[in-house]
């Protein structure tokens, strides 16, 4: 980076540190923060869409669809999210390869599961073994996004399902009295009004989503946890120009501070948003109930 960095072993103090922090690997580490932000930016709207679908399905009057929606919410919420992450990454990968195998190699006669191996024809590999490194990384990232969206979609579905039920019954009844069909009342009355009820739950979910991003590491993406472990480990002079002891503690302290700052910032922004949305609305969510712990407002004695 800087000209003085050409001879690292002669440096000391701050100069050494500034050279150390601008090595190529450190730039990869800083870039990984971008990966985390990208994951959040993509996952949040997709999960919201999944959640909306789940909530609509759970409300459906067609029983099997309603069971499906409620089952989706219940199963994902009843099981640790890490188990889902570990499961879906392999399951999705195998599912996609299996479908491609069926489509591309119809005359392949060997079984796909041979003992402990999962073998598909070379054309069905995903991504193809000949493709570039960045394709592999991008594929891994999209699997991660999909898995995150599926898990958080269930939580969002639960929040939106509750929000749809919180819209005062009178609003929908009025819409029906004006001759709107069920679908029209849903689109023109229920959906525009539900957001203010959903916002506290969705804010909470956003915080949870931020705090779930380090799990990217488990999905095989080279994220900030990966780099912090890699860069922080003991470095000997044989392999690097910047030898140091075990600094993983400091790297993880840095990540801890990063997440604290990020969640605090989100908290402030969401608080503003809530004030803005509830201006002039006589809801409990807009006045005092929101500051209390969840589930508190309706259980206490009056």
């Amino acid at each position, binding site marked *: 980076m800087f000209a003085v960095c050409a001879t690292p072993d002669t440096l000391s103090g701050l100069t050494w540190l500034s050279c150390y922090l601008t090595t190529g690997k450190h730039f990869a580490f800083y870039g990984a923060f971008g990966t985390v932000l990208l994951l959040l930016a993509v996952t949040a709207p997709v999960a919201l869409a999944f959640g909306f679908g789940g909530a609509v399905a759970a409300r459906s009057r067609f029983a099997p669809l309603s069971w499906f929606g409620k089952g989706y919410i219940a199963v994902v919420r009843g099981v640790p999210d890490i188990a889902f992450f570990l499961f879906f990454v392999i399951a999705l990968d195998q599912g996609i390869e299996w479908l491609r195998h069926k489509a591309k190699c119809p005359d392949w006669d060997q079984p796909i599961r041979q003992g402990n191996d999962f073998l598909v024809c070379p054309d069905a590999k995903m991504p193809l073994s000949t493709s570039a490194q960045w394709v592999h990384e991008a594929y891994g990232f999209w699997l991660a996004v999909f898995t995150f969206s599926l898990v958080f979609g269930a939580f969002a579905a639960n929040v939106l399902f509750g929000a749809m039920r919180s819209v005062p019954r009178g609003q929908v009844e009025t819409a029906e009295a004006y001759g709107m069909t069920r679908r029209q009342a849903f689109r023109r009355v229920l959906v525009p009004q539900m957001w203010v009820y959903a916002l506290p739950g969705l804010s909470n979910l956003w915080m949870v989503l931020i705090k779930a991003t380090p799990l990217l590491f488990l999905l095989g993406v080279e994220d900030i946890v990966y780099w912090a472990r890699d860069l*922080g480990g003991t470095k000997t002079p044989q392999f690097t120009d910047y030898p140091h002891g075990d600094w993983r503690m400091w790297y993880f302290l840095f990540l801890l501070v990063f997440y604290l700052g990020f969640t605090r910032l989100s908290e402030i922004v969401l608080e503003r948003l809530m004030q803005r949305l509830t201006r002039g609305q006589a809801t409990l969510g807009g006045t005092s109930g929101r500051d209390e*712990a969840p589930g508190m407002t309706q259980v206490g004695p009056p």
Partner: protein
Amino acid sequence: MSCWETVADYAFRSLGYGERLLPRADFTLCQQVTLIGSGMIWNIYFGVLALLSGFVLATALAMGKAARSRWLRKPAEWTIFVFRGSPLFIQFFFAYFLFLSLKSSVPALDALTSAWLGAAVVLFLNTAAYSGEIFFGALRSVPRGEVEAADAYGLTGWSRFRRVIWPTMLRLAWPAYTNEAIFLFHATTLVFISGFPAARQQGDALYYASYFADKTFNPFVPYPILAGYFILLTLAVIGVMGLINRRLNRHLPAERTARSGGRFKVLFR
């Protein structure tokens, strides 16, 4: 080998009893169910220990956050902020490496680097912070009338807290606290994949489930088994917390009692 022999060999494998080597080939369903179930011992151990010890600190944190004195309030607020504002996964990593470097200067702290103590400490502080925030919210919604009634009876200080404020606080907080307990049990699966080593392959349920998934390259058997165990555990937690809730509310007329888990809100790490 019959299934009973497998159970005898592996039922307490996670604690180091029974067969030394994990199965390596020809995995049977029985082996997977037994070993993953054996791992659940660790999940239950961490969950119960953190919940019981965290409960005490959580009450203290809630009192601290509600205190007038800055010297009590600030430390409580910061503890809650730090543990709720950062991912548990990162907390585990940081704590593990912190304990490692502590160990090199103070050998007496050796035990902290193994999961049974180190991870339990992190989970204890983490759940205390989350529950502390719940209790704090409940503390603020204790009806003024009840406190005034206590004053009218001449109750002050500790006895007023012990007999009036604390029971009402618990009663109000219980549904949210039930959620926290459920998510705490779910969070125990993070222990062995975040720094803390599983000594001699003695790990928790997720550790064995991912072991089988890696070996057989078939996630469709071990993870559903894990999910089944956790759904049972979740139901058990809801049951136990519901019993406590009934006891907390036993003086109230039936329709006023808060149903735990009735409105199941998301509140986890």
